[in-house]
């Protein structure tokens, strides 16, 4: 478990970090290191340089204003899971972050690292997708914003360019009548999601559904939204029957089969966990 040689940079600002990335095409961004360091130790990755953004102050905080929650890229899972602001404005994200790995992992791993790594079996991508998160990105060409639905391109591939860093995740705070839930079926070895279901529903005063989203980790190459199943719930009373009928015909495109679980079983888990997440979200709405 000895990585190849690499240079190490520890910039103190995002600007400086972006410049180093622009100057070093083989460099990788290091945040919490819980995905990158293991693959380097296995020599599955051998970046020429690491750009450690872990001590850039601007990436460390959680703030809430004007109905919007902003989380810096280097905020850890543990901070997210236990933040009163996140629990109030985006409880789905707190719930998902609290289910990642173990205590040690949650104290080191970061939201920015997680989303940029884009492991489809990790827990945050579906939550970010279901919450309609906006991802703020800085690069040598300036800053831009990418919606979560445009961010996850393919297996461990995102919309980030080589010289760009994810700096902040912005989520519109949950309004009245909104409930959410993250339900996970974990692989016994890795703890990653064989299937993770993230659901958000909103009901009006009469109890009928005015908005729903249902997204999955672990089922295909990226986190994926089951938009048809979710939209079919709008206008319903969110009864168990309505939820069951919404998910019963659901099929996730390009579901993955591997040595852990077949594609068909993952589809089955998606239906089961999807219904479970929707019911819990409804009960919390």
């Amino acid at each position, binding site marked *: *478990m000895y990585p190849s040689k690499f240079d190490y940079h520890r910039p103190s600002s995002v600007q400086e970090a972006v410049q180093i990335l622009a100057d070093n095409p083989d460099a990788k961004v290091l945040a919490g290191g819980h995905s990158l360091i293991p693959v380097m130790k296995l020599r599955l990755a051998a970046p020429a340089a690491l750009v450690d953004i872990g001590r850039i102050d601007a990436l460390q905080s959680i703030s809430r204003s004007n109905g919007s929650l902003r989380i810096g890229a280097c905020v850890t899972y543990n901070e997210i899971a236990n933040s009163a602001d996140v629990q109030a404005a985006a409880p789905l994200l707190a719930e998902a972050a609290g289910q990642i790995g173990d205590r040690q992992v949650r104290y080191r791993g970061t939201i920015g690292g997680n989303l940029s790594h884009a492991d489809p079996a990790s827990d945050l991508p579906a939550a970010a997708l279901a919450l309609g998160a906006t991802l703020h990105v800085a690069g040598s060409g300036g800053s831009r914003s990418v919606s979560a639905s445009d961010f996850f391109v393919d297996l461990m591939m995102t919309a980030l360019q080589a010289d760009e860093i994810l700096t902040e995740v912005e989520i519109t705070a949950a309004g009245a009548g909104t409930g959410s839930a993250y339900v996970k079926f974990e692989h016994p070895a*890795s703890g990653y999601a064989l299937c993770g279901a993230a659901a958000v529903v909103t009901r009006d005063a009469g109890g009928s559904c005015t908005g729903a989203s249902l997204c999955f980790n672990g089922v295909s190459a990226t986190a994926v939204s089951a938009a048809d199943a979710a939209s079919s719930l709008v206008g319903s009373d969110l009864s168990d029957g309505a939820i069951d009928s919404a998910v019963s015909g659901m099929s996730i495109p390009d579901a993955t089969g591997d040595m852990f679980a077949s594609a068909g079983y993952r589809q089955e888990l998606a239906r089961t966990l999807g219904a479970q997440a929707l019911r819990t979200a409804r009960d919390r709405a």
Partner: protein
Amino acid sequence: MAGESNGAGVFGSSIRRREDPELITGQAKYTDDLQLSGMVYCTILRSDYAHAKINGVDASEAEALDGVIAVYTAKDIEASGVPGGIPVGWLLPDMKIPEHYMLAKDTTRYVGDGVAIVVAEDQYTAHDALDLIYVDYDPRDGVADPKKATEDGAPLVHDEAPNNIAFDWEIGDKEQTDAAFANAAHVASLDIVNNRLIPNAMEPRAALADYNSITGELTLYMTTQNPHIHRLLMSLASLGLPEHKIRVIAPEVGGGFGSKIHHYADEAIAAWASMQVGRPVKWTATRTETYLTDAHGRDHVTHGELAMDADGRFIGLRVDTYAAMGAYLSTFAPAVPTYLYGTLMSGEYDLPAIHCHVYGVFTHTVPVDAYRGAGRPEATFIVERLVDEAARVSGIDPAEIRRRNFVSPDAFPYQTQVALEYDSGNYEGALDKALEAIGYDDFRKEQAAAREEGKFLGIGLSTYIEACGLAPSAVVGSLGAQAGQWESAVVRVHATGKVTVYSGCSGHGQGHETTFAQIVASALGVPYEDIDVIEGDSGVMPHGWGTYGSRSAATGGSAIASAAEKVVDKARTIAAHLLEAAEEDLAFEDGNFFVKGSPDQAQSLPDVALQAYLAHNLPKGIEPALEATSFYDPANFVFPFGTHVAVVEICASTGQVDLKRYLAVDDVGNVINPMIVDGQVHGGIAQGVGQSLYETAVYDDGANLLSGTMLDYAVPKAHFLPSFETDRTVTPCPHNPLGVKGVGEAGTIASPAAVVNAVVDALSPFGVNHIDMPVTSEKVWNAMN
């Protein structure tokens, strides 16, 4: 712990493990913690191919890398003139024994097979250099499945073993068994795959070799369960150094589960490299290397059948097994699916006819060898699954059919049809206790009610027996062992009455320092705190055979008890002289010798020890000092047994198995330290539950190991397991001085069948009669749908 641990009452009390403060505070020194002056590092280039011809190796770039001292291949080892062999230590008749060299010469036979060695100034350079060695491989087809490997046309692992068959072995009476089946009223029949397991000791294997070219002495610190066996094999087969010039030391060893019994190439390579470069050489396996090189366990494909008469009495059992050996015959590999497997086929049952046939099969995989339980979990799984299937086909309750077929308590000694003579037991006693504790009758009602609500509960029994404390030496020798199975001990009482005990066992987590001291405290009547136990150094203690096969208490403990008895005998002679009394008039209580009826005039053991060392006033013919050595060769195996019960609930929508309760009633004979015994049972159960629900080594069709990391291979986590319920019955072993049996493997042997029997019971409404391990959620879901 002073005060609670004096003298005779120490045996049988739950003294806290004296090993633990060092271990849990990180102070203990493992092999990789050791640093020697001038030390360099060795890494090993491993084959990426399951099967390939090596056309050539170009190491010039690696050799040119700054900090690289040398790169070696098999040619260099051959040129050095050492034997270079990695031998097999258990011989079966007509067994094919292909050459196993320290590095692959011209063919690689599994992913992980060693091809080249790098020696470098630091670990990073040693690993960087591996990336700069270019091997010209000519890849060939490989085969990983032990049954498919025997089919005509399967790729051959060794040309000299047609159909990849290493040995063709049987036990029992085929004719008699076939006749029993011809008369059967019912037959239970199952095809069973016993899944391949990867050991996952917490500490990876490591070696630090220090060869002194002036004295010709090699000091080898290594992760070993048996330093003397490694010294012997290093000397005879690998390095050719005289045995007395090799000292093998086991520093703290972080678990083994069998994986550190075996003699591998890697530690021999570190030693050979030290002989070449003239500096201490350290090799430490990466976790990836432990997956690719530690001998795996199990990996059987079996068809088993159990014949019954109309009353559900068992009349015959027959078993056909294809057992993977992997690419080479590892140290004790041939014994595992034969004498540790076929001999257990009678289980706890009075079975009048048994036949077990085994093919040992070469495959393009990591070698397979003893792993916690070694053959006995596989046998127990077959027998206990067949018994449950017999209950199903005959319509008899699983508890009742067991009761009907147990060897009865008055039938001991009981001679099985497969060589073993069980010395003692009360199988129904353990079953009754377990059924009562679990509430068996109530459970059946609860199960029926739950099914009405669409909930699937199941209960599974495993009424197991195992044979451990492998012995006696003459018997294991006649079966093919190239080793003895006695054990040694030295009990040395110092002049002040303090005691040092040397054992030929070599603990690596078992708690010997505590339990062995308890034995001596009890035997000598001296305070527990006054006794130290030393193990694991071939330069310090007499020859011993190490720790594996649940042997340490039964053989090593008995050796210690015998040596202690000799000490007491000598001390009695001296005490009688000092008290001017006849020996036969002396009593020995709580460490004091006195004339019966006159306890006030006593000579304590420390008093006697001081006189023994001063030697100013010893009886005629008595040598000075007070110590004794014992080489204890047991009269028979020991036979722990018991009943384990698992209760599961299956999630109807995902198929996930929730292990709700696990109860174990074990009979391990007399118990030296109940807390340590419970700990062993807990660990064993966890490991067996791991096999039954989570763990499996997966090879693809090309024999590539897919489950090569901890991300892929599921070792059970604490939160997967319920709080175990444990209880005991006590049937002392009749043939050793302590009345103890073994406990290290019992949990691993019993639990897979209990868990799978429970799952199959839960799924009985779906007509399921077997699911192969690991019982994953998907397999269960498929069975339900």
